C-alpha cells in the first residue's frame, strides 16, 4: 500500500511537471525594427547609396541601403519621410519670415521715429529670426533714444534669451562709437 502511494505521488509529480512545461509563457525575440528606407531629405547622399537609389532594384527592407543603417541628414539627424503639405507650409512660412527680416534689415541705419517704432514692435516677435533682425537694425541705428523702450520690453518679457539679447543691444548702443571717439567726443 505504501509503495502504491509512492507510485501515485511520483506519477502526479511527473504530470504536474509536464503541465508546467506546457503552460509556461515562451520567450519570443521581437523582430528588429526596420531602419528608415527613405533617402535623406537634406545633405548629400553618399555615393554608394546614390548607386542603389538609381539602380533597377527597388529599395526593400533587405537592400543594402537599409540593412547598413539609417541615412542621416547633414546635421546628423535621421531622415524623415517628407509630408509634401507640411513642406509647402514650412517653405511658405520661411519665405514670409525672410521677407519680413529683409524689411526690418532695410531699416538699418534709419533713426526716424516711424522706423524705430516698426523695429521696436518686432523686438518681442515670436519668431527668433525676426527678433534678431529687429535688434540688429536697432544696433545699426546707434539711436540711444530707444534704450528706455528696449528696457521696458525686457522688463515685461519672461524669455531669458530675449532679455539677454536686449541687454546686449542696449550695451552696444551705450558704447561710444568709433566715430565719436575719433572726433574726440568721448574723453579718454
Amino acid at each position, binding site marked *: 500500500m505504501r509503495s502504491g502511494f509512492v507510485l501515485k505521488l511520483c506519477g502526479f509529480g511527473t504530470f504536474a511537471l509536464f503541465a508546467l512545461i506546457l503552460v509556461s509563457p515562451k520567450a519570443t525575440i521581437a523582430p528588429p525594427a526596420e531602419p528608415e528606407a527613405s533617402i535623406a531629405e537634406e545633405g548629400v547622399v553618399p555615393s554608394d547609396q546614390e548607386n542603389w537609389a538609381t539602380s533597377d532594384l527597388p529599395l526593400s527592407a533587405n537592400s543594402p541601403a537599409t540593412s547598413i543603417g539609417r541615412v542621416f541628414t547633414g546635421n546628423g539627424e535621421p531622415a524623415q519621410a517628407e509630408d509634401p503639405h507640411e513642406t509647402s507650409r514650412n517653405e511658405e512660412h520661411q519665405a514670409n519670415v525672410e521677407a519680413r527680416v529683409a524689411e526690418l534689415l532695410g531699416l538699418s*541705419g534709419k533713426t526716424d521715429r516711424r522706423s524705430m517704432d516698426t523695429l521696436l514692435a518686432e523686438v518681442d516677435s515670436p519668431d527668433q529670426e525676426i527678433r534678431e533682425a529687429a535688434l540688429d537694425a536697432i544696433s545699426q541705428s546707434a539711436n540711444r533714444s530707444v534704450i528706455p523702450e528696449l528696457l521696458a520690453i525686457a522688463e515685461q518679457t519672461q524669455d531669458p534669451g530675449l532679455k539677454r539679447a536686449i541687454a546686449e543691444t542696449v550695451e552696444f548702443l551705450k558704447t561710444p562709437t568709433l566715430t565719436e571717439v575719433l572726433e574726440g567726443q568721448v574723453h579718454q
Partner: protein
Amino acid sequence: MLAAALLAASAPRSEAQNTVLNIVQELRFKLTGYYQMSPTENASTFFRHAGKVSISNNDIINLLEPQVNIIFTSDARLLLIRGTPVDLTPRVVIRDRFEGEQFDTDVTEYFSAQIFVSIEDTKINKNPLKGSGVCYEVVSFELNLTDVNFRIQGLGNMKVSTGKHEGDPVAIVHTGKVEASGSGEYQVSVLSGVVPVALFGTVQISGKDVKAMTE
C-alpha cells in the same frame, strides 16, 4: 563642383561681351573693440583701464569717405559683390543715391573681404535650380587706412539658398552671420599715438539678388 557645373549649364548667355552675373549682398557690421586707456594709480595700486568702442556700418562708411572723396548719405549701404559661381575675393562697394540716381563706389582698395574656405552641406535640385542646406565659411574683412586699420576673421554658419536673376534661379547663395574677431589699430590723437584694439562681434551677410553687371 556640382554647383559649378549646374551654374555653368543654367546661367543665361549674355549678348554683351563682358556682362557677368554677380550676387549682391548687404553687409552689416556690429563690432565691439577694447583698447588700452591711460593708466592711473594711487598710493598703493596701479590701474590699467580698457576702453570700449563700438563699430557699425556708419563708422566704417565715415572712415571711407575721405578716401573716395564722397560724403555719403545716411542711407548708404555696404555691399558685398560676389561673382558666380564661386568668388573667394568679392568686392566691397558702398551703394548710395544722389538726386534719385543710384551709384556704387568700389572701396575694395581700402576695405576688402576674403573667403578662405567654403564647405557646403546641401541639396541642389537640378531643374529648376534650387539649393538648400548649410555652408561653413571662414571669412575675413580688412580695413586698411592711415589712421585706422583692423582685420577680423570668423566662421559663418550660413544658410544656402537660391539666387534669382529676373525671376530665374541662377546661383547658389550663402547668407548668415559670421562670428568674427581680430585686432587693429587707430590713432586717437597725434599726441596719444596709435592704440591697439581687440575686436569681436558679428558680420551679417544678407540678400539673394543676382544682378547682371558690365565689367
